[in-house]
């Protein structure tokens, strides 16, 4: 079956612009996670959803970052007033329920110039 998909695969933007990154989880998975991976580092947790609600957003670095999952399936990570330090690979994962294995998408590589 289809895995987790993320669009776009690459995004180049200018400092100060707004970006949206999309994640399509595996069908039927109730839990969805966002991570950020900087060059040479392990993935860093940002936020996770159980259904439509954010169960844990403790990893969001500041109020420029926001994520939604309005219908409990697709999620969008939104970054306002982008900064060069936001450049990273943004990973999405989903699991059937929070206690189950997380399956990762290929990531969106964001470059802020």
């Amino acid at each position, binding site marked *: 079956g289809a*895995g*987790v998909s993320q669009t776009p695969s690459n995004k180049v933007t200018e400092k100060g612009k707004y970006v949206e990154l999309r994640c399509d989880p595996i069908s039927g998975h109730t*839990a969805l*996670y966002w*991570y950020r991976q900087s060059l*040479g*580092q*392990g*993935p*860093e*947790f940002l936020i*996770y959803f*159980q259904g439509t609600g954010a*169960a*844990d957003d*403790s*990893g969001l670095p500041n109020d420029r970052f926001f994520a939604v999952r309005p219908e409990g399936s697709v999620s969008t990570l939104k970054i306002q007033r982008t900064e060069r330090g936001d450049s990273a690979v943004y*990973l999405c*994962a989903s*699991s059937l329920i*929070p*206690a189950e*294995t*997380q*399956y*990762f*998408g*290929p*990531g969106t590589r964001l470059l802020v110039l």
Partner: protein
Amino acid sequence: AQSVTQLDSQVPVFEEAPVELRCNYSSSVSVYLFWYVQYPNQGLQLLLKYLSGSTLVKGINGFEAEFNKSQTSFHLRKPSVHISDTAEYFCAVRRGNQGGKLIFGQGTELSVKP
């Protein structure tokens, strides 16, 4: 707070040699432990996981890991590596009584040479 330390950032090894990738964690509560692999230009893939039961866990591609509670370690091993095992390996923990947040280590780059 939990943390994960992968003791080697790079591990070069010759083909068919054994390999061990080291991982230590710190947590005041019970944890679930995972190893993920990231091949070049691909997403993270689960290799194996420890949830409970036997401390020796077998995963895909001939890898295995041993949970050692007293040493708070979860080292990954393979008796004979192949060129195709060249990849980045990540150790991760999740609190046993919480939701799905994973805490990852910095990663170990395994480079298998002919």
